[in-house]
């Protein structure tokens, strides 16, 4: 191997190599301005490389990635839809990118109007009364929503309500959020139709229940048919209903959480409204709530003052800030542009086509794979992978083999309640041929399991590395590069 394509930027560093970005400092020597005892003895071991090396290094690294721009990326519950390029151009405008968060309201009226109007659009889409844009992602949105509920109960002396009911199909962030908020997560079973098991819910519902955290449509890709009943049950028992809005793509413009009994929910702008996933982030998790929870929303929120807009701080009952400043403003800009592009009709068509694409793809594979819940799905569907074991292969093998066909695999082994599952979400962005090709690849892999099992077992074969020893990585954690001589 002549060119080691896996060399780290540090291993490409050579003494004396450099870029020429900043002028030689021309002021007083630093030792004159800062006492010696505060000054570093040895400089940080930053790489010494020229500009071409940096460009070539990170350009070649980018080519080792699957992305929506290069591949079909049906990662369930992540809504990997097309990220419009116009939104990147708009977010990089100096009028948005070069704003300092400490600038007075009068100097940033364009930004405040955008945030104010976006708060309104998200309230309308969710059927809620008030919105905060401050949470940096869905998980922080969940925590914000649950803290609103806590503040609501505490103000009413309901400090005994320390339990939150969570369907067993929920995402891991839901129970984790409850713990962070000082609540006890109580898991609620799902029934055979994939909805909430009402009896188990009733069994676990008590005056200790602060809230139900429900994901609707659920991570099983199904709308909770009993949602109205459930919400009534909760409200009658003095509890609140929180909704994880990760799957809003399926119902935007069709139905609204505020209309089916939800008190507070979070959005994932990087799912439903296409702000780019960026290799793992940034995201944005605005929270929308009904009137009765509005007083507790984090400060500040943008308010209209006459013809102008201002950051409103006068909220005595607010739970306070969940994050410095006002949230991931760059994602607000992209989401605002996305909603203004679509308008009411575009958002509804997104939901309809996401659901149509999911049902069509399900129909293509239902003959050869076990669909966990055999009825029309919403924006995603779940395959029960347990029968694969009879063919001598695992869900993981199917996922890895898909890489060789140029497809990013679906979500695997989540939700936990479906064994060896694959969760497939095509989104509305993909065309029919891509869905046909993906289905053909899935089915071909089943055939390969019979004719050439090794091919599937040891996949992927076309990636820069083979299957990695993840156990070794956990047992002997190497989490930073150390120069050979120094280690």
């Amino acid at each position, binding site marked *: 191997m002549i060119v080691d394509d896996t060399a*780290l930027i*540090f291993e490409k560093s050579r003494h004396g190599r*450099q870029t020429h970005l*900043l002028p*030689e400092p021309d*002021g007083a020597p630093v030792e004159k301005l*800062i006492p010696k*005892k*505060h000054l*570093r003895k040895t400089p*940080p071991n*930053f790489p010494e490389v020229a500009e071409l090396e*940096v460009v070539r290094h990170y350009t070649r*690294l980018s*080519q080792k*990635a699957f992305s*929506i721009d290069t591949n079909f990326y049906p990662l369930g519950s992540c809504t990997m839809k*097309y990220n419009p390029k116009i939104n*990147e151009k708009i977010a*990089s*405008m100096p009028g948005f*990118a070069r704003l*300092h*968060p*400490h600038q007075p309201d*009068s100097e940033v009226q364009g930004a405040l*109007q955008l945030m104010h109007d976006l708060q309104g659009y998200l309230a309308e889409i969710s059927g809620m009364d008030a919105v905060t844009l401050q949470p940096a992602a869905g*998980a922080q949105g969940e925590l914000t929503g649950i803290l609103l509920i806590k503040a609501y109960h*505490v103000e009413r002396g309901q400090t005994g309500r320390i339990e939150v009911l969570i369907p067993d199909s929920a995402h891991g*962030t839901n129970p*984790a*959020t409850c713990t*962070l908020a000082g609540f006890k997560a109580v898991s609620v079973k799902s029934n055979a139709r994939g909805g909430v098991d009402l009896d188990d819910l009733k069994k676990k519902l008590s005056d200790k229940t602060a809230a139900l955290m429900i994901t609707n449509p659920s991570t099983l890709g*199904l709308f909770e048919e009993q949602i*109205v009943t459930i919400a009534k049950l909760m409200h009658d028992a003095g509890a609140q209903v929180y909704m994880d809005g990760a799957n809003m793509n399926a119902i935007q*413009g*069709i*139905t609204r959480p505020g209309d089916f009994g939800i008190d507070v929910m979070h959005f994932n702008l990087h799912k439903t409204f296409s702000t780019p996933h960026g290799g*793992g*982030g*940034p995201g944005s998790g605005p929270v929308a709530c009904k009137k009765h929870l509005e007083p507790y929303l984090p400060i500040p929120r943008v308010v209209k003052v006459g013809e102008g807009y201002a950051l409103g701080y006068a909220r005595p009952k607010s739970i306070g*800030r969940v*994050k*410095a400043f006002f949230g991931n403003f760059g994602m607000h800009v992209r989401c605002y*542009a996305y909603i*203004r*592009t679509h*308008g009411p*009709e575009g958002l509804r068509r997104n939901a309809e086509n996401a*659901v149509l694409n999911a049902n069509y793809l399900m*129909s293509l594979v239902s003959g050869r794979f076990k669909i966990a819940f055999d009825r*029309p799905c919403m924006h995603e569907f779940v395959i029960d992978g347990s029968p694969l074991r009879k063919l001598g292969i695992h869900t993981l093998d199917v996922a*890895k083999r898909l890489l060789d066909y140029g497809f990013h695999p679906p979500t695997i082994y989540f939700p936990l309640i479906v064994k060896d599952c694959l969760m497939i979400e095509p989104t509305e962005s*993909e065309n029919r041929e891509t869905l046909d090709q993906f289905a053909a690849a899935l089915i071909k892999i089943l055939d390969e399991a019979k004719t050439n099992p090794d091919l599937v077992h040891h996949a992927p074969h076309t990636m820069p*590395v*083979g299957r990695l020893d*993840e156990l070794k*990585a956990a047992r002997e954690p*190497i989490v*930073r590069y150390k120069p050979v001589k120094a280690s």
Partner: protein
Amino acid sequence: MDYIQNASDDAAAMLKAVGAKSVQELFTSIPKDVRLGRALDLPAGMTEQELLAHMAGLAARNRTTDSHTSFIGGGAYSHFFPALVDQVAGRGEWVTSYTPYQAEASQGTLQSIFEYQTLICELTGLDVANASHYDGSTAMAESVAMALDHSDRNRILVSAAVNPQYREVLKTMFKQIGVEFVELATFEGATSTGGLAEVAKTAAAVVVQSPNYFGVIEDLAELARAAHEGGAKAVASVNPVALGLLEPPGACGMDIAVGDAQPFGIETSFGGPWCGFIAAKMELIRQMPGRLVGQTVDGKGRRGFCLTLQAREQHIRREKASSNICTNQALMALRATITMSALGREGLRRMATLCVQRAHELHDAVTSIPGVSRPHKSPFFHEFAIQTPVEASVLNERLLARGFLGGVDLEKSYQDLPRGMLLCATERITKADIERFRGALAEALREPR
């Protein structure tokens, strides 16, 4: 408008394959009485040309750190970064991929995170750093959670000189699980260490910031010593550019360092998205929140990288997790990584040195104006407080008219600094800017009410 590919005849064929006469039939699981049944009350959709004009209109109504010379700091800093960052980090493969769950198909993302973790460890002098967090404020909250996890004490000591918004976030995150926050006083703008070891005996952690909110360089070694003497963890919030010149928290004995990598290649963008970082001693690796990339090998012994110690994370520990973070600030961490690699050893030295020089020249220029004084004597990095005869809000308006974005209003957070203002200078500021600002500030101060 929308980005849907399938046209009407695709939809017809797909409905037929699914056995539904119309797409509405696929929504029968939604009870009829909660169907919206009307169009959402939103403005009509726009084509790309119309959208661009509309957004340009909104953008034009904002003053920016490009249109005006800015001395605003207070947690967000306008720094130079090379043109290659936008062009390389803006590639579709970086922007539109998601978390590297399938390691073999994400070696590029995983390796770049491994390099980011290394750069943060080098800056902070600590052993392990996670893939990224939302921002500096939430990273500080996670560090407090790590300390509480490691101790049976329920009190946290936080310096009054820590960023006020960071301290607000700590209260929001921990008040409902009964954690008590005690403020450490400051003297001459620096956290006073007198009696700290004593009071630290009651605390799970001592949390400070250096350079602190007044730009003052704290005595981290002494603060860490006192914290440890009291049996508490020592946490420091730091500025990554300053660590190009200042003794790193690790070398000062700090257990955890947090902060925001925003100064490296990330736009101020009215408050976010930025890039919180957390670094700690190796002994705390199992408490490290969020994603962590580790090095390993594949079947042929080739080096590769993968997400590791996932058992810490929420999707495994669920209700036992100490952090609920899932999506983080990955693309911002990439921008910081590329910027740090492009600056390199010499570029980091120049950036930090220019910041110190310009800030001290700015200090000398403004304090030469009668009535303008710095309330603190302690050494500072690239930011310092001043007090003038005019409230910062009024002064900033007058400065705006003269092409400047002035400084941060300190009085709102520190009653003991009436008409106080925070000024910051980075390498983007030239000596000519400082000269012009001196004239403008002097004029602005003389302007009648």
